[in-house]
């Protein structure tokens, strides 16, 4: 495990200080070229845009996911677990295919229009990217919140009611603070993949929109060969890694056993 976790970080760090064409250490030399290339307006704009879009998507995920998790956790049916399975099932359908299908529905000439007469016509826009992100990552918000809501001792809620608080106040003063742990896990689980996703913006905008994930993809020589630039790719990865480290620290504070990460 250590080999795969710590060495790559060191490796990324070293590579970002080098200047090289391909992966050839003989021709590589020390330079700050990657830094000056990375901190230009194009990449910074891409960063800002990724963060903004991911933040909006995360906010919507909370707005839909919290009530959903809350309702499911209060349901009086014997098998709440099977309800969660219903949420997991869409994940067995390939994500790229789902993104593509949703995107096709958003086009002006779509299945929706010919079937129901609804033409959404937002394909390729930022709205469409956010919509697709919400649909893809909503379950990742629901699960951690559900996990913590399940664990809340019902006698606490009873106590609150006995002490004179109404339902709303009980929710605000007891349930919500106790579920903050799940919300923060959920935010991390949704925000990070949304901000770094390159498939969703690529498919939805047909390659026109460049978020930070798309830029890394190009730099790693996958999009096409001309744009390959490993040092810039690793530097961008390191910047993301710093954000990841921050969230790791946060998780280790609020949830040391990692219970809400599943």
């Amino acid at each position, binding site marked *: *495990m250590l080999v*795969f*976790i710590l*060495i790559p970080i060191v*490796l*990324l760090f070293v*590579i970002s200080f080098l200047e090289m064409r391909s*992966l050839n*250490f003989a021709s590589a030399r020390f330079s700050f070229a990657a830094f000056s290339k990375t901190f230009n307006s194009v990449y910074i704009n891409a960063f800002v845009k990724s963060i903004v879009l991911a933040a909006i998507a995360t906010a919507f995920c909370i707005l839909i996911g919290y009530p*959903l998790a809350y*309702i499911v956790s209060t349901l009086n049916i*014997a*098998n709440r677990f*099977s309800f969660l399975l*219903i*949420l997991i*099932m*869409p*994940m*067995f*359908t*390939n*994500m790229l*295919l*789902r993104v*593509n*299908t949703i995107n*096709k529905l958003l086009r002006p*000439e*779509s*299945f929706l*229009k*010919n079937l129901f007469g609804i033409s959404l016509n937002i394909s390729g826009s930022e709205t469409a990217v956010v919509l697709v992100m919400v649909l893809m990552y*909503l379950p990742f918000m629901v699960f951690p919140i559900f996990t913590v809501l399940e664990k809340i001792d019902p006698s606490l809620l009873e106590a609150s*009611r006995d002490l*004179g608080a109404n339902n709303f106040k009980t929710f605000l003063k007891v349930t919500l603070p106790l579920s903050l742990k799940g919300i923060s896990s959920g935010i991390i*689980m949704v925000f*990070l993949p949304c*901000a*770094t996703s*390159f498939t969703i913006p*690529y*498919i939805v905008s047909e390659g026109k929109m460049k978020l930070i*994930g798309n830029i890394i*993809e190009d730099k790693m020589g*996958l999009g096409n060969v001309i744009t390959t630039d490993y040092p810039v790719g*690793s530097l961008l*990865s390191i910047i*993301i*890694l710093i954000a*990841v480290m921050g969230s*790791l620290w946060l*998780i*280790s504070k609020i949830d*040391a*056993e*990692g*219970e809400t*990460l*599943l």
Partner: protein
Amino acid sequence: MNNVVRVKAPKWTIIKRRVLDIGKWVFLFAVIMLLYFPIIVIIIQSVNKNVQGTYFSGFTLEWYKRMFRDEDLMRAIQNTISIAVLATLISTVLGTIFALGINSLNSRRRRQMIILNNVPVLNADVVTGVSLFFIFKFFGVFVGREFILGYETMLIAHVFFCIPYVVLSVLPKLNEVDKNLYDAALDLGCPPLGALMKVIIPSIRTGIFTGALLAFTMSFDDFVISYLVAGEEVKNFSMWIYASQRAAGRTLAWPKAYAYNAIISLVVLLILIIYNIVLIKKQKRERKVRVNLS
């Protein structure tokens, strides 16, 4: 306070509760519809004669036939399934061993190991992929194989990102196991390995099973990491789709992909239904036993 309100306007409270109840179900239904709509569309499109999928112009099973005839696609599907199965088996075994190891540490070391374990879970897929890409490339340079990326590297990468999920689902179960049980087994003359297999493993069985299920789901649906570490030759199903997305004009590719996915969805649905029936039967049996006992 509550009681006063209830006495004053009982009808109003009942109506309010009704409305809330209905609203609750409408909301649940709406969200589920939203999540399932693309899948329903995929299933409809898989039997649609119209290639573009903008109209429904008739029922056909042509795409299913073509799917099985498309060698490229079939190879991608084979890779996806074989890697998912192998990665699940390997990572379940390794993850369980890791969890046992972490569980035996003192609390400080345990915290550190859990943080380390969480890195791949929280890390952005792109960053994991990029790091693994460099590791494999440098290993390739080291052993003198320039084109090291392929099936093996993809399998190693999948095992790597599946292990943490197994560890995370086994650890809580291990926490619940009574430590005295293991000692009791040792006292009764069981060798350590035997005690492990006969006492510990059966009691963390559900955790192992959940972990394996998670690992399989993750591996089966992975795109980003595979894309970065599999090189140009080997493809899984996601990579095949992405390649179709990139190559303009490959409209014929989509219905075949829909057909494949429709099959997968139906298989998963079938498994879920069977699982639920088994579960309900088991609960009924347990209830009967409890009634008989009392």
